[in-house]
């Protein structure tokens, strides 16, 4: 079984987690002022990266918290996990994110 490092609880089995889609997508601070294309991009456009991908995960059957992870989508390897609101660890991204 895949073991995922929760930034709060430590290494835990994959079964306790839920995937939450791409990370670091900022909601436009003033939605009324953006174009419909920009709003559509915010809602729907995702990178669909092949390789190192920054994504949200939730330790739903544990501490319940959302956090972010860098995962290689070709190997399913978790390179790093970090708390929501933090920047991805630079050493782990290889400049990919």
């Amino acid at each position: 079984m895949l073991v995922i490092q929760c930034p709060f609880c430590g290494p835990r089995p994959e079964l306790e987690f839920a995937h939450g889609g791409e990370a670091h997508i900022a909601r436009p601070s003033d939605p009324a002022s953006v174009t419909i294309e920009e709003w559509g991009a915010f809602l729907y456009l995702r990178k669909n990266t092949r390789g190192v991908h920054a994504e949200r995960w939730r330790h739903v059957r544990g501490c319940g918290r959302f956090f972010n992870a860098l995962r290689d989508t070709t190997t399913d390897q978790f390179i790093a996990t970090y708390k929501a609101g933090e920047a991805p660890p630079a050493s782990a991204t290889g400049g990919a994110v």
Partner: protein
Amino acid sequence: MVNATAVLPTLPSKHWLRGTAPTTRFSLRGNAAAQQLAGQALGLTLPVEACRAHSAGERAALWLGPDEYLLIAPLIEGEALRAQLAAALAPTPHSLVDVSHRQIGLELYGPHASWLLNAGCPLDLGLAAFPIGMCTRSVFMKTELLLWRKDADVFHVEIWRSFTEYFTGLLSEVARELPG
């Protein structure tokens, strides 16, 4: 108030399973200030370390998340404790919800307790990885449960009421492999 003992599910009679005394439960959400005030009202220090439980007598505070705790006490103290906690926490933003009847408490005990749990729970329950005093939510097959190791061979388990039969039934199946 509902008489909790009257609506408790019937537990199978097993030598590795027992019910716990009727319990009052509060779900507390709040920052460090709220945690300190709640601890004072409860008579113990709320654990700051992840996945740890602190207890004093029959009362306990279980860390569930960075700002989330389960507070438990004997059922008979419930009304008074709720008033005490609410008064103590009033000055600071918080959420305090009575969840006494949402779940029931069970105790798995004996030399096979962790073996039984591992039939449906993927956590490493060795003493090094899951020491005495550790608590966490996890899964048991398709249900969620809360585990608290009170002693090397004793696990306090909180399970959502409607899943009690599912949980004890599956454990009973697994226990058929036990000697004796």
